[in-house]
């Protein structure tokens, strides 16, 4: 039984933690919150300089040639720091999608640039206030051009390229394809969106006869997307575990320094049990995420269930940790000056980032039904 990260992976985790606690404390994330800047350039540059954007990209395409397990430990630290960078969009979504499903030429064109951070990528999926499905993707692909509107697109205001989920004609899932779009090209309008978490920027992108290139043969996009989202679910789950742990520590520390009715508030069972519940959810999320990491790294047969379980446990743990951490702080936790808001905002953002819990519960139930076929 070796259900743990290796010493090398733990060392990488320590390095990333050290870098982020040094260069990306919450005061730096706050600067992004309180200004118009879309992300923190110095932190992003540091991650790029460490080679982390190329972690899971093969060496042949300019990456470090490591695996999903290395990405997982990085994700946990980015989540803990509530870092304000486009790492998840560019690495978990765009790079992984192109690595998995791009043509040889697309991989040669984009992966080295994504690895060296000279290009920032993203995934454009959502088209408004509903869960995406093969029936409601209207962004249309025809003759090398796309037309339609995506909203919200994470880092859509600053990304250089996007993997866009498009309708390429036909019925049902066969209508869906993935296409790469150079966002610097003609026919593209972007508008920054106001969101619950300004430390991660989002935009509406409108395509009008914009040049696009399909990833592989048409009609395979829905299955490809599903695989990309499963991988991202595991990686986001690690961010959520890191975030939940940080929110829990914040609440614990405050409960020890704050006195009410002559005692530390952390000595009341109402607070102790609340924090114990956060710990329980966080550990359940971590254990599920570990199995997700293992399945993702090995491309295991149980990846679909493991990814969904990672996603659901991660959503539950971080949202609960963030809101109860703020609650533990009382009135001070609701002020602009308090740092509790970073977790409150980010937890909900991540819980919706690649589809809500309701959506993933349905996916998981469907996958379990298939697995437990009568």
């Amino acid at each position, binding site marked *: 039984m*070796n259900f743990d990260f290796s010493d090398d992976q733990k060392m990488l985790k320590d390095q990333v933690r050290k870098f982020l606690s040094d260069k990306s404390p919450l005061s730096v994330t706050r600067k992004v919150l309180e200004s118009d800047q879309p992300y923190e350039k110095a932190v992003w540059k540091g991650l790029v300089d460490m080679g982390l954007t190329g972690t899971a990209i093969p060496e042949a395409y300019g990456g470090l040639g490591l695996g999903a397990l290395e990405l997982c430990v990085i994700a946990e630290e980015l989540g803990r720091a509530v870092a304000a960078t486009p790492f998840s969009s560019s690495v978990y979504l765009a790079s992984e999608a192109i690595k998995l499903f791009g043509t040889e030429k697309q991989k040669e064109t984009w992966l080295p640039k994504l690895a060296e951070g000279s290009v920032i990528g993203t995934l454009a999926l959502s088209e408004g206030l509903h869960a995406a499905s093969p029936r409601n993707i209207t962004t249309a692909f025809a003759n090398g051009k796309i037309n339609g509107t995506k909203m919200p697109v994470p880092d859509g205001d600053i990304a250089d390229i996007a993997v866009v989920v498009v309708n390429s004609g036909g019925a049902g899932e066969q209508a869906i394809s993935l296409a790469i779009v150079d966002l610097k090209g003609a026919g593209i309008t972007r508008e920054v969106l106001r969101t619950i978490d300004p430390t991660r920027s989002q935009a509406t992108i409108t395509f009008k006869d914009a040049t696009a290139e399909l990833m592989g043969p048409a009609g395979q996009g829905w299955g490809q997307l599903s695989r990309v989202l499963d991988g991202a679910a595991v990686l986001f789950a690690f961010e959520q575990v890191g975030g939940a742990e940080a929110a829990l520590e914040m609440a614990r520390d405050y409960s020890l320094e704050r006195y009410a009715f002559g005692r530390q508030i952390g000595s009341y069972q109402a607070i102790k049990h609340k924090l114990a519940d956060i710990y329980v959810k966080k550990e359940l999320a971590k*254990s599920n995420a570990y199995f997700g990491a293992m399945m993702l790294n090995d491309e295991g047969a149980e990846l679909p269930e493991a990814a969904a379980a990672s996603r659901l446990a991660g959503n539950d743990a971080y949202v609960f940790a963030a809101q109860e951490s703020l609650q533990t702080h009382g009135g001070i936790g609701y002020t602009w000056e308090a740092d509790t808001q970073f977790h409150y905002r980010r937890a909900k953002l991540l819980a919706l980032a690649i589809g809500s819990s309701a959506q993933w519960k349905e996916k998981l139930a469907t996958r379990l039904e298939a697995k437990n076929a009568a």
Partner: protein
Amino acid sequence: MDFNDTPEEAKYRAEVRAWLDKNAVRKADAKDAEQAKTLEELLKRSKAWQAKKAEAGYACITWPKEWGGGGGTTINNVIYGQEESNYAVTGSVFAIGLGMCIPTVMYWGTDEHKARFVKPAVRGDEIWCQLFSEPAGGSDVAGLRTRAEKDGDEWVINGQKVWTSGAHYCDYGIVLVRTDPNVPKHKGLTMFWVDMKSPGVEVRPIKQMSGDANFNEVFFTNVRVKDNQRLGQVGDGWKVALTTLMNERLAVGGSQGNADVAELIKLARETEIDGKPAISNGAVRERIADWYVQAQGLKFTRFRTLTALSKGETPGPESSISKIIAAKKMQDLGSFGMDLQDMGGIIRDRNISPEEGAYTEQWLGAAGYRIAGGTDEILRNIVAERVLGMPSDIRVDKDLPFNQAPKGK
């Protein structure tokens, strides 16, 4: 990451499997008729199996060989347990004695005690029970009232113990009593071992809410024990008890009931809501997803613990979450399985109800499982205090002499 054994572990597992194949019947091949029908039969078989294990070094695997153990590692013990669970054998009557009582005797007993008791217990010749809980001392065990008074070189015990598993068939027990009511409660306790056949010991089964009787009340009326039956110093009973309780989490086990997510999916296919298969109902699908996530989380938390053991490290605190989740899940899943049967969910008949009545049984049983070996509330205190480093509760009786501390009826 992988779930594979190390070469040494694989070798040990193969040895264990070969030995079990030679000496026991696989569950899959065991016939219903072979199940023990009476307590006497169960005890006879358990003892015979335990003796066989002891001879082969598979009883108390982690204990030194000179005490009758196997001289093995914790991971050896885990591997043996995993393999043995596939065979139609049982050692449950020894779990408390070997998991909690004998370790206490080994730590606190005299050389004479150890020489007299350890080997017979390992071989299964003698069975032990633990007599701590009382009607007035459950979560707050140190509030117990059973008293022992010195009379020459003997002590005279009077009082009542409760929730004592196996007292009706045990040979010996360890009993925690109050020897000094004039000092604060934790300071006036002392531990003894006691012969359960002593005059004045009366065992009565407790009928549980479920109708079963797995536990007992034990009444002590002028029970005389020698001073040399004492474990530890007079007044050190609490310290001694902590040695025992440290092992409780391991001894209480991880039963989660017989119905889990796979069974629930099957049931949801067979039942209907509003004339449609229940499995197509969103509320049902949500519950299936939620419990799957919990079940997987528990399983992989256990794997994290096993990994630490496999590497020879001390497992992290994550194992403390298991019973908090498992007991509540067992209760809720049982309850929801009953809901799926709609009005028929009230039926408690293994010939009618799905999974031979597993849903109703675990719904009834979980009410006790949430309390046994640390209530949900006490376990949350433990996580908060020992894992998160939060302050312990204010105890208003901490410094008061026991006989002046506030008490209920």
